[in-house]
C-alpha cells in the first residue's frame, strides 16, 4: 500500500528497515512490504581465516544465505562451528577473508573502520550474553549511549531512551544502575539500547546464556514481541530449546551451513511464561502483558 509512494526515495532509504519513528511503541514497517526489496542480510561465499603462526585456520568456509526483513533466525552450532565468527562478521566487528556481505543493501565488506562503526551504530543492535552495560551509568544513560555516537541532541536522546525503556517494560527503572537491576532486567536494558537507533537488524549473541530458564523465557518473550513488531532478529545460541522460539534455524558445523530450516510452529514464549507462572501460583505477568497490549 505504501510501496509506490516510496519508489522515488533515494537508494539509502530503500533499505528494508523497520524504523521506529520516535514513538517507541509504534513501528514504521511500510518499507518492509515494498516488493523487490533487498534482504537485511545477504552473504555469499563468506570465508574467514585466522592466521596462527604459519598456518591458516579456517573458521568459515564459504557461507551463503539471506535473511529478509521481519525474520527471526536462530543460528545454532557447537563451539568451533563458526557461528561466533559469523556473528562478528554479520555484526561488522570483523572483516571477512573472502566473499561478500550486504547489510540492508550496503556492501559492507569494503568499508573503512569508521564506516563500519557508523553501520554498527545505526543498522545493527547488539545484545550480548554478558549484557555489557556500563556499570556506572543509569539504565537511561546506557540506552542513550548509541544515540550519543549518532550525534543526537541530549533532549532527543533522553526522550527516545525513555521510549525504548517503555518498550521493554522498564520505564520505572530508568534511573537504576545495572547493579540495582536483575539479570533479566539488565538484558532488557541492553535490548532497549540495541533498538534505540532503529536498527535494521537485532543481533543477539547467546542473550539467555547468563540467565535462568524462567528469565530466559522472559527475554525470549521480549524478542518475540519485538519480532512481531517487525524487527529482524538474528539470534546466536547453542541451546535447541531457545532456538525453538525462532521462526528459522540455521545450523553450522565446521564453518559451513549444515542445515537451514523454517520452523513452521515456533514456540510462544509469552504463553510458556504464563504457563510457568500459573504453575507457581504467581500473579499475572504484568510487564509482558503490557508489551503485548502496546498499540502497534
Amino acid at each position, binding site marked *: 500500500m505504501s510501496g509506490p509512494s516510496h519508489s522515488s526515495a533515494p537508494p539509502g532509504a530503500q533499505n528494508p528497515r523497520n524504523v521506529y519513528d520516535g514513538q517507541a511503541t*509504534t513501528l514504521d514497517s511500510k*518499507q518492509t512490504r515494498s516488493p523487490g526489496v533487498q534482504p537485511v542480510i545477504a552473504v555469499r561465499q563468506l570465508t574467514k581465516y585466522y592466521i596462527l603462526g604459519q598456518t591458516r585456520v579456517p573458521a568459515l568456509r564459504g557461507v551463503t544465505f539471506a535473511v529478509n*526483513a*521481519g525474520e527471526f533466525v536462530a543460528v545454532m552450532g557447537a563451539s568451533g562451528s563458526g557461528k561466533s565468527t559469523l556473528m562478528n562478521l554479520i555484526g561488522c*566487528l570483523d572483516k571477512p577473508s573472502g566473499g561478500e556481505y550486504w547489510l540492508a543493501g550496503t556492501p559492507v565488506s569494503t568499508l573503512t573502520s569508521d564506516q563500519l562503526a557508523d553501520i554498527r551504530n545505526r543498522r545493527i543492535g547488539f545484545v550480548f550474553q554478558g549484557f555489557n552495560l556500563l556499570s*556506572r551509568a543509569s539504565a537511561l544513560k546506557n540506552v542513550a549511549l548509541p544515540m550519543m555516537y549518532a*550525534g*543526537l541532541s*541530549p533532549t532527543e536522546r533522553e526522550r527516545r531512551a525513555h521510549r525504548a525503556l517503555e518498550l521493554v517494560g522498564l520505564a520505572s527503572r530508568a534511573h537504576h544502575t545495572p547493579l540495582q537491576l536483575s539479570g533479566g532486567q539488565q538484558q532488557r536494558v541492553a535490548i532497549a539500547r540495541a533498538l534505540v537507533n532503529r536498527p535494521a537488524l537485532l543481533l543477539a549473541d547467546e542473550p539467555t546464556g547468563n540467565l535462568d530458564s524462567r528469565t530466559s523465557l522472559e527475554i525470549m518473550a521480549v524478542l518475540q514481541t519485538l519480532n512481531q513488531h517487525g524487527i529482524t532478529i538474528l539470534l546466536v545460541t547453542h541451546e535447541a530449546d531457545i532456538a525453538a522460539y525462532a521462526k528459522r534455524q540455521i545450523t553450522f558445523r565446521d564453518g559451513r551451513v549444515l542445515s537451514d530450516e523454517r520452523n513452521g510452529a515456533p514456540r510462544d514464549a509469552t504463553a510458556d511464561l504464563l504457563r510457568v507462572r500459573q504453575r507457581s501460583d504467581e500473579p499475572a505477568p504484568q510487564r509482558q502483558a503490557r508489551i503485548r497490549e502496546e498499540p502497534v
Partner: protein
Amino acid sequence: MSTPTTQQDAQTPQPQGQTSRAPAPQKKKAPAHRGLMIGAGLESGWEALWANRLRSLLTILGVIVGVAAVIAVVTLTQGTSELLNSRLTGLGTNVLTITPGSTTTGGAAGGLGSRQSLTEDDATAVASVPNVTGVTPVITVSAQVIASGQNWNTRVQGVTPAMQQIQNWEMAQGAWFSDADNTAGTPVAVIGQTVVDNLFTAAATEPLGQMITIRSQPFRVVGVLKSKGSNGLGNQDDVIYIPFTVAKTRLNNSQYVNQILAQVNDANNVDGAQTAITTLLEQRHNIAAGGQDDFQVRSSTQFVQTAQQFSTTLTLLLVGIAAISLLVGGIGIMNIMLVSVTERTREIGVRMAIGARRADIRNQFLIEALTLSCAGGVIGILIGLIGGWALTNAFSLPFIASLPWIALAFGVAALVGVVFGFYPAIRASQLDPIVALRSE
C-alpha cells in the same frame, strides 16, 4: 498487535497513523556527529574519574604540586618587586649611594663598606658634580638613647639638612635642623616615629623640645618624622638624624664617613652623574685608570635591579622544580590512564560495538586525561594562591595574583594532560573490538 506472522517478509504489523513520518529524522543525524562528542566525553570522563576519586587525586598530585609551586613563588616574587618599586620613592628618587670599598687584610677581603676611604671633603667635592642637586655625608652609629626615663637602641645618623630632600622625609612635627645648626654644631635631633613610640609614648610626653641623651650627649628634639613604614629590609622609622658636624665630633670622632648620598636632578642624568662621581673620586683617591676603586657608587635603581635579579633567579629555580614536578605528574597521569584503558577494555569494546569510532574512543580518554590534569591545575592554582597569600603576609609584602601566570600554569597543566594522555588514548582507540568485547 495480534497478526500472526507466518511469512518472513510480509506480515509485519501496520502502524496506526504514523505512515507519513519515516526516514526524515534519520537523515538529520549525521552532521551533528562531531561537536556533540566533547560534552558527552566530559561527562563520561568525569564519571570515570569520580568513581576512582582517591586514585584520581593521587594521580594529579604531581600536577598540583607543580602548579602550586609556580603560583606561590610567582606571587611571592611579584609582591617583592612590587614592594621594591613602591619603595624606590622611599629610598629617594635618583639617589646615588657612595660607599667605601672593601678592605683586604692579609688576603682576606672584608665586606663592602668595611674600608675607611670616604671623607667629608669627598662629599663636598661630589656636590660640585654637574646635575647633582643635593649631597650629604652620612655617619651611622648604633647607640643607646635615653629620654624621660625610657631607653632605646637605635640607628643614629649624622647628616646635613640635604638629607630631608634626598630621602623625601616629611615632618609630623617641628622642622628639620638648619644649615646653621649643622655649621654651628648645635646638638639637636630629628627623630623617627618608632623612636617616639619607644621613648615618649609610654610617658605620654610631647617629644618636641624634649632632651634626649645619645651616648651621654644631650640633644634637643626639634622635629618628628612622618612614618614611612618598613621597606622590607628594615624599619625606616627607627632612626635619629643629628647634624653631621655634631656626629663627627661627638659620636664618631673620625675624619671618615660611612656613606655619601647624592641626589641627581633627573632620572636621565643618573648614569652620567654616576660616571662623573666615580671619575672625580678616583682622581681624589689617586686611583689609576683600571685600578681597584676603594669605593662604590650605586644608584637606587641598581638596588632594585639587584633585588629583582635575585627574585628572577629564585623564580627560575622554582619554575625548574615545578617543571620536573609537572613531568612526574604527567607520567603519573599516563600511567593511570594506561591502567584505566586496561581496566575498561570491555567497556571500550561495547562502545565500539554500539558505534563509537576510533576517534570517539581516543577523544574520550584524551578528555579524561585532560579533565585530570585540568583539575590538578585548578587545585594547584588555588593552593598556590593560598600559599602565596600566606607567604606575602608573612613577609609583609603586597599580595598580587598574576593573571598571566595563572593562565600559563593552567595552560601547562592542560598541555601535560594532552601530551601524556595521548598515548593511552591512542592505545584505547586501536583496540580490536572483538578482543576488547571478550576481555574480562
